[in-house]
């Protein structure tokens, strides 16, 4: 940042290197070691993992552990991954479409409802969901313990954030574009889905990535609203394993590793969008 400090450049370089290296060492100890520990323990045999030492495995059992974890309890992990994938894809899709519609109309059209809707959006960010009454409503509607019920729950809980993102972004799209499309005879549906929606691409990617992380990692909603065997999501499976595998640390950590990997891949590919989405709150403030 300070580019003009020519005479002090040597001092700056010394600082740059010492501070940088110090930073690397400190973050390595605090942030990287736990991940290496997960990986190493996941690669050990059951006996060796039991010592919980931070050491190189004398005998690599990575593949054996992987197979054993996947086969555990009638392939529950496979079911869980399928469930989590369906849940994430379905709820993020609905969230994006529905909240883009809300954000768009909310920004474009001023009516007497705007105040109330803005209030409800803020409330959605702040208010903790009431658990048992939600279950009661879901039971009345036949949504309790069903996948589509859980999808709707995720949509309801994640929507406020998405609406805010879309409303902010729609404001940057010139109204002249809408007018031109209307002149050309586009109705409201075509105007939105064929003209506006494609222009939202960058914010849609951000919303998808951020919400996918939240939905995939969520533990509380599946725990409450989607109980029962066959209904596990990956986070719930991990929680069950935690109780069960207190003697087989290699399998527990293999499970943790498997559940962490999708997010790691996500982060490598969508680094920029994730950062943009997560900091958007700060910019708005």
């Amino acid at each position: 940042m300070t580019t003009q400090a020519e005479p002090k450049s040597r001092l700056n370089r010394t600082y740059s290197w010492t501070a940088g290296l110090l930073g690397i060492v400190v973050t390595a100890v605090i942030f990287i070691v736990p991940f290496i520990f997960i990986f190493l323990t996941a690669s050990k045999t059951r006996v060796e993992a039991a010592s919980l030492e931070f050491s190189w495995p004398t005998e690599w059992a990575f593949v054996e552990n992987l197979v054993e974890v996947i086969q555990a309890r009638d392939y529950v992990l496979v079911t869980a991954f399928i469930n989590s994938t369906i849940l994430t894809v379905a709820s993020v899709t609905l969230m994006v479409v529905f909240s883009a519609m809300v954000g768009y109309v909310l920004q474009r059209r001023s009516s007497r409802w705007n105040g109330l809707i803005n209030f409800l959006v803020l409330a959605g960010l702040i208010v903790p969901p009431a658990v048992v009454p939600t279950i009661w409503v879901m039971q009345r509607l036949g949504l309790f313990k069903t996948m589509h019920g859980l999808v709707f729950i995720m949509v309801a809980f994640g929507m406020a954030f998405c609406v805010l993102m879309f409303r902010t972004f729609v404001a940057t799209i010139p109204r002249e574009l809408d007018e031109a499309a209307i002149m050309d005879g586009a109705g409201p549906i075509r105007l939105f889905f064929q003209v506006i929606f494609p222009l939202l691409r960058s914010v849609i990617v951000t919303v998808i990535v951020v919400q996918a992380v939240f939905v995939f990692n969520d533990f509380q909603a599946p725990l409450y609203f989607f109980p029962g065997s066959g209904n596990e999501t990956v986070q719930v499976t991990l929680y069950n394993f935690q109780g069960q595998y207190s003697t087989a640390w290699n399998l527990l950590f293999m499970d943790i590793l498997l559940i962490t990997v999708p997010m790691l891949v996500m982060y490598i590919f969508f680094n920029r969008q994730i950062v943009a989405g997560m900091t958007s709150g700060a910019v708005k403030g």
Partner: protein
Amino acid sequence: MTDTMARGRAATPTTPEPEQPRHRRRTKSPYPMWFYAPAGIIYGVLFIVPTFASFYFALTRWTIFESEFIGLDNFRTFFSEPFLFESLINTLIFAVITSGAKVVLGLLIAVFLTSQIVARGWLRSVVFFPVLISAVGIGATFAVLLDPFEGLVNRTLAAVGVEGPGWLTDPNLALFSVALVDVWRGVGLAVLIYIAGIVAIPQEYFEAAKVDGASAFKRFWHVTLPLMRPATTTVIILSLIGGLRSFDLIWTMTGGGPGFSSDVLASVVYKQYQAGFYGLSTAGNVVLFVLVALIVVPLFWFLNRKEVDR
């Protein structure tokens, strides 16, 4: 309630006459109100209705099928049973500690990571990464790492001659250990928000301060810090909301134990739900709702007002 909005009449008929007669004639605006309907129905049925229902059911003895009105008994129970009341205190302690630590550490790390150092991008990625890992995975990992005898942390401490405490087994310490892990996990988000703020400060401010002979510390104290108020507002509010509702990490690391020493409102809600005391569980939910509203709303108002005043 929101689905009634769909039927709200168009207030601003700005559209030129619709050229397509087969398109619904009634809709005057190109921005139809029914666009609110799908989101409004889901949000209304699964979020607003339960929230209002909770105020009633908190006053009942409730098996999901029938409810008996018992007035404020649930709340009386809640505030008279020490183990329930303690959860309220714990929730406050947890939220205040974690958001305070995230503000201080987040700002310091962000200043460090915006200075001229090597491997800046890599360091930023590393600090942020834990934000994306599930709380359950982190909880399970740290429950092992913080084991009093075999855990990596206490072993390392023992190697340098310090006897580590029972992080998660000491009732006086368990809540703070979980808070520490929560900070470990969440500080990356605070850092990211602060970095975005620091990068947005015009470089001229620092140069002007430098010309006036301000030291690096003075530049931080008098330039960076005051300009970081909006970012601080965001970090405080986000981490308070997260901290007050926190459940996943506490539940996977201690389960509220040992005893009830690390129980928070969210874990009490779950325990009472599991035990079948639905009315009491909902009362816990209402207490949490009131707590969040009492803390976050005035804070939001206060911090935003300050900003406008300047």
